[in-house]
């Protein structure tokens, strides 16, 4: 198994955190992982993204020009990264912030109303966990339980009060596909 993801969005949307959660969970499941952020001043007011690789084999490069998976939280990031997704790959987009219907050529596209659900839960900042939940539900890269456990490890101590709401968001995202597909 080898997965190469790019996760992208606005600075404040928690895309780095999504990536860390995924990498941490991969590590906990005994897989090889790397997490590589975009960094520096470009982040100021612009878009942010990170690359996550998860593999059963040793990972050579942590960079990725053509991901097999794109998790994308806003339109500018979609415009930037969608063309880079490998043929046969998949893209999950935040349909609450990207309003037109998106379709991919040669890629599999899933619309996730991440902000909508997050707002239903009363906190737009957890849209990222909705998205992450949806992704792992649909692709089964790591277990939901592992992801849930990673929260305490990846969130800094002073934010541990937010664990519950993040769990909730993960669950809502997750159930989006587990229920959908099982129906």
């Amino acid at each position, binding site marked *: 198994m080898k997965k190469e993801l790019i996760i992208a969005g606005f600075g404040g949307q928690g895309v780095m955190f999504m990536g860390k959660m995924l990498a941490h969970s991969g590590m906990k499941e005994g897989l090889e992982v*790397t*997490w590589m952020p975009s960094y520096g001043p470009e982040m100021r007011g612009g878009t942010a993204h990170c690359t996550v690789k998860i593999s059963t084999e040793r990972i050579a490069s942590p960079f990725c020009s053509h991901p097999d998976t794109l998790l994308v939280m806003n339109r500018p990031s979609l415009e930037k990264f969608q063309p880079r997704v490998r043929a046969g790959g998949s893209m999950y987009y935040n349909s609450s912030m990207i309003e037109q219907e998106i379709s991919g050529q040669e890629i599999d596209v899933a619309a996730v109303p991440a902000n909508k659900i997050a707002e239903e839960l009363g906190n737009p900042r957890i849209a990222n966990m909705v998205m992450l939940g949806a992704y792992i539900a649909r692709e089964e890269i790591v277990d939901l339980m592992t992801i849930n456990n990673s929260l305490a490890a990846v969130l800094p101590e002073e934010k541990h009060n937010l664990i519950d709401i993040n769990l909730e968001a993960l669950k809502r995202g997750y159930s989006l596909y587990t229920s959908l597909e099982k129906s």
Partner: protein
Amino acid sequence: MGEKKLMKGNEAIAEAAIRAGCRYFFGYPITPQNEIPAYMSRRLPEEGGVFLQAESEVAASNMVYGAAGAGARVMTSSSSPGISLKAEGISYIAAAELPCVIVNMMRGGPGLGGIEPSQSDYFQATKGMAHGNFHLLVMAPSSVQEGVDLMSQAFDLADKYRGPVMLLGDGMIGQMMEPVEFPEKIDPTELPPKEWATDGARGREKNVINSLYLDPDVLENLNWKLQEKYEQMQREDVKYEEYHMEDAVVAVIAYGTAARIALDAVQAAREDGIRVGLIRPITLFPFPEQVIARASAQVDAFLTTELSTGQMVEDVRLAVKGRTPVFFHGRPGGNMLTPEELLEEIKKIRGEVQ
């Protein structure tokens, strides 16, 4: 070794330094290594150490000089322009034979350049860091775990050679997260005492930390003595890694970040049936010239690849001595090498030398 942790390279390297007994850090902020001082400012006071943000890189390297001369395990870290400002101080450190560790998380240059991963300070790190005949022992990790492992050895090597050791990385090593395990903590008070250090000449002859030698004989002796250390490094402390070299007819040579990418290309080439291997220098000074010299009898061509316009390639050529063609492919300035372009280069070379 404990449990695996997912950590950023910069933080992991900082933690490894603390575990290796480093208790003093003097530095000045610069991207992409800011997590090192940030981590140190949190952790060092917990260990009874001192973190001090210097007024500049110039001051930082001279604080390191003072603290190293006073007998401490001490380090600094910076990135390209900041390292250039430390140059004079590093020359003094080398001349006064003071052990310390310097991290350079390189970024694209010259000038202010950019902050993306880059390897364009190779010449500076291995040859012309500053005025005078001296070198640093330079190690280039290519994974976070290796960053930790090399940092664990760096202070011992600095003490062994009484000189500066540089850990040379870039934004890839510094910013990425990978799982790491750490070695046990060393208690710095249990290290062998440094008889030459300035800590108040209690009941002994005075010690002097100095690099002024008005007598040319004395200065010449110092120069040759340093030279001997470098020869000893070449004998005793060369580090490198080989992949798929057993039957290779083309050898890619790359270090650090470029080596990670090159490995992808090598694996892809192998899948295409091309017998290509990778030699990854871990120490850049001392340079693994013998392994490359040996390989030159085996392979039909070398491909050196760097995130630069071609710097290490000179050391490869010096090792190869014209026996085998040496090709170069580089991406300077922040653009990443891709496995695809390297694969293409490999194929082209395979064609040319056949």
